[in-house]
């Protein structure tokens, strides 16, 4: 069995106390809990402090460009559906520059997992306002306080058609590990919003701030994650109360079943040595 040490690579360069350490650890725990093989796991990221996670994780990784990790992750999964694809990144990466891709990844419902490390601030560029920053949040680019309404990532995921939506917290690495494991296990697009505090550039949304607002969904009497209406209501209240656990899940057809060939071998692993193998397709096509 793998250990977190087996799954570690280099020493992270995050600031001491950064929430992202716990996310890295939780991803490793999920891989271990599910018994995934290193070579069959791919971690894809964009750009930002959180997107450096694959640098420190010893599985196949792809550190791509800012905001575009999801389409890369979708391509990886479609090329080889046997792979477990975990996409990670921050709130600027995923909900500013990459917001369009998020909506389409959710509605496309390819079987990948997206772990958003949401610290409500731009950190790698040293402290600017983010699309998830609270109103009034003062930064170098919002000296009078952020004016724009923050993106409610959970609500957006639900309305865009994500088939698994969860919320976690860096203070609860055990809970987060299980949540990521459940998301990876889910067949379809799974999304987890992780409250992962930036201790250097966000003095508002701190560990204590989140702790005060957080509550566990499993302790809510009668909470039913299969209820879309209940999930919408829970997500809508996110700015006042932060739910921890699975908000929503449902089973529906995933992209691969609809659009992919019925070939038993994944596209990436097929033998392509014979160029004339599909020559009949030319004849068929030209007849029409």
């Amino acid at each position, binding site marked *: 069995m793998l250990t977190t040490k087996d799954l570690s690579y280099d020493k992270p360069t995050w600031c001491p106390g950064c929430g992202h350490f716990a996310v890295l650890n939780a991803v490793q725990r999920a891989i271990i809990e599910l018994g995934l093989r290193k070579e069959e796991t791919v971690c894809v990221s964009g750009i930002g402090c959180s997107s450096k996670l694959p640098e420190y994780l010893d599985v196949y990784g792809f550190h791509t460009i800012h905001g575009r990790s*999801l389409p*890369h992750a979708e391509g990886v999964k479609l*090329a080889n559906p046997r792979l477990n694809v975990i996409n990670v990144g921050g709130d600027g990466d995923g909900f500013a520059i990459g917001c369009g891709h998020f*909506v389409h990844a959710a509605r496309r419902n390819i079987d990948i997992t997206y772990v958003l490390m949401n610290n409500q601030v731009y950190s790698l560029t040293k402290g600017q306002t983010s699309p998830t920053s609270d109103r009034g949040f003062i930064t170098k680019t919002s000296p009078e306080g952020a004016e724009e309404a923050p993106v409610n990532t959970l609500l957006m995921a639900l309305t865009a058609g994500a088939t698994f939506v969860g919320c976690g917290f860096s203070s609860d690495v055990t809970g987060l590990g299980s949540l990521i494991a459940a998301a990876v296990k889910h067949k379809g697009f799974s999304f987890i919003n992780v409250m992962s505090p930036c201790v250097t550039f966000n003095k508002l949304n701190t560990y204590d701030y989140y702790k005060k607002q957080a509550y566990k969904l499993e302790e809510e009497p009668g909470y039913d994650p299969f209820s879309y209406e209940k999930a919408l209501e829970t997500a809508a209240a996110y700015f006042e109360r932060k739910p921890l656990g699975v908000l929503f899940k449902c089973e529906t057809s995933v992209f691969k079943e609809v659009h992919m*060939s019925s070939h038993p071998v994944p596209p990436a692993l097929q033998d392509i040595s014979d*160029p004339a193998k599909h020559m009949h397709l030319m004849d068929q096509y030209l007849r029409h």
Partner: protein
Amino acid sequence: MISESINIAIGGEAGDGVLSAGEILCKVFYASGAGLCTYKNFPSRIRGGHTSYSIRITDDICRSRSCETDILIAFDEESFAFHNHELKDGAIVIYDPARVKNIAKVSGKSVSYFEIPFSDISVKNFAKPLYKNTVMIGAIAAILNISKEHIEKGFADSIKAKKGDDVLKTNLAACEAGINYYRGLRGAGHLKMPAGKVEGGGAIMITGNEAVTLGAIAGGCKFIAAYPISPATEIFEMMCSLLPKAGGTAMQAEDEIAALCAAIGAGFAGARSMTSTSGPGISLMAEAIGLAGCAEVPVVIIDAQRPGPSTGLPTKTEQGDLYHALFCSHGDVPRIVLSASTVEECFEFTANAFNLAEIYQCPVILLTEQVLAQNKYVAGKFDYSKIEINRGKLLSEAELNEPGYKFLRYEYCEDGVSPRAIPSQAGGVHLCNGNEHLETGRITENPALRTKITDKRMKKIESALSSKYLPRPKYYGDADARIGVVAMGSNVPAAVEAVDIIAAKTGRRGFKIMQLTSLMPFCDKEASDFISKCDKVFVIENNHSAQLCGLIKMRLPVHEKLVSVLKYDGISFSAAEIAEKLMEVD
């Protein structure tokens, strides 16, 4: 060589059915064993606006449009404005009086004008005007004395499978009505149909976009992500229907950025992967092209060029993306850029683009153009035996796990090409990285190592110059000539024919032609040899800024010999236009 050529132009409004009638006519001519190429001129909208479909029929294989018209069919008055200047001596013009009230006749040429009420004939015989185009096809068949056998075959190939026997029968009757009406006209003349020399059994009729798609499938492509855009859309449409049958997957992306990123993801995962687009799409893909270069991921990008900048002319043709393909994206990006000039090259270069992408682990951009992408050409059947698959330094799991071997994804190698592993392979676990990285793939900012890995990446493109999968320059014309012509893409066949036209008209020879097929890496040696043996070299291209000429000047100190011949009106060069330019400037 072409010795007989007839050009037909059919003009009408978008929605008149001009394009679908043109397609049926193509099948009729194709059935006769003639050479053929089409030239569609249509607006970027679904209804309204002048549309024309020109078909050039030749005795031998033909590759470029004609700018002279023998038969003009006018469904509207605008047809005269668009085509009068093309009419040849002896041309036949037919118009439908339903919509054509004023005929703008040409002067100084002997042109015969005939009125045929296509719509009325259709209504009288079939109770609706739907068959007016088929009646029109009959008139053309009568002018050219096309055999019944070829007419029936052409119609059956176009209609039978899709619409059934009854529709076929009605169409054949409408065609017959057209033939009879034309034959009954007083003074109705005939033109000689070129006697087809093209091998009927083996020949195919195909567009550049279709040829690219078949090349991709032959080249082992298993993944495409794309976003619809003129004039590249048909590649993606055809891939969506064919690729699942060939074991692959197609994904319609939300934009071109996502399209290329998904293709890069699939390439990293080990599938031969591609996207198809046009200039505006390449603009959006610029950053990801750099990622594929830095992270060394194989991916093939087809750019069916249209005139820019911005939205430009979506349904017209140009060669204005050359600089864009060569230089887009920040930093030093290793890449390969190819240009295809015929449907055969579309097939062959696409298949080889996948070899080059995997061998050199970089993005490969294949440039085509709207004129080549969306027009039909009769060609010899594609030769699959010429295609081979080479996956470069992609290691097997056994190789990765050989005792004592330590896999380094970005290992510094003499040829700049490092060994490659794909997810699912044990022993190959690594980080693929768009951040500057070490041989392992992990991030670094070490100045010495940054220099070293940049050198390694850029070295690959130099190495690609000696690859057997990289298309070489091609030469035509008189090898000892002192006047040279350099061209790429669709201008090449037009230039080749232009030289024949000059010889036939003036008896003058002494032109040699060099076709550039790989723009990056650039064949310095061949180009230098060619140009150094010329006194003057015409560089023919479809853009304003003389990009091909600029590229040559960037590579070679031959500035004073080069003369640019440019066209950027959205319409491709015809052979006659090039011939005129060569004689005029000389």
